[in-house]
């Protein structure tokens, strides 16, 4: 009986094991957040590029229209 209790105590995780597991979980969450931030950042940057291109196109079209009307 005493032998079984000692063996069970040996199987219990040590403080170091718990700290390592905690570190692993934090590392996991850290990289999950990096992944999500990076994915959304790429899409947001693309949308911003699109908005800026749209504004540039509108400005150029308006400028050319004004120039053509002046020539007429």
């Amino acid at each position, binding site marked *: 009986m005493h032998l079984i209790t000692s063996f069970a105590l040996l199987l219990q995780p040590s403080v170091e094991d718990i700290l390592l597991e905690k570190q*692993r*979980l934090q*590392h*996991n*969450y850290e*990289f*999950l957040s*990096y*992944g*999500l931030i*990076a*994915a959304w950042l*790429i*899409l947001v940057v*693309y*949308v911003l590029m*699109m908005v800026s*291109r*749209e504004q540039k*196109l*509108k400005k*150029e*079209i308006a400028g*050319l*229209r004004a*120039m*053509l009307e002046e*020539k007429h």
Partner: protein
Amino acid sequence: MRDKIMYGLGALAILILINDIIHIMGLPDEVNQGAIFKIIFFHVPVAITALTAAAVALIASVLFLVTRNFFYDALAVAVTEVGLAFLAANLVTGSLWGRVIWGVYWAWDARLTSALVCWLLYAGYLMLRHAIEEPTQRATFAAVFSIFAFIDVPIVIFSIKWWRTQHPQPVFWGGGSFPSDWLPYFLWNMLAMLLIGAVLTMTRLRQEESQRELDYLRRLAHSM
């Protein structure tokens, strides 16, 4: 009307995503991989959206070559550009997952390499368009290039079946073990990503129309 549909679809996609993200964050960590497994809710939907975009670009390119209708050329460029952004998001999320599970950001296995080649091919398609001035020649060359680039898409999809890869087998077919009660959240995310892809394509398509109007006005100004 088209603007209203676009804004409506965009708002719907954002609402689905917000609701889905709240639910996904509440799910327990996966037994073997832990929290990082949840990246699959974004990694796979963005990949499927990117490959759907490639398929649409292929159809639009073939239709352009058959009909010579410039609408299809505009659709091909719009959908390719959007697909490229989604594929970039796929590569980055996959790389970060690899860092945790494999210990490295990148491995030159068949799936990763073919996906990177796919990204480079479609980036090349956009660069080719910038290099050719004449619109008909540009559209024809780009359509042929897009059809050629699509050859890589089945290689990306089936690379994990055809070769022994470090990349895991699919979790939904081929002996995967995706928890069945997580599937609805995955499918909602899939729908949201496809909706975002569609809205971005419609926006980009409108810009192509504006670009054509601008080209017409420039020609008119030169001829005066």
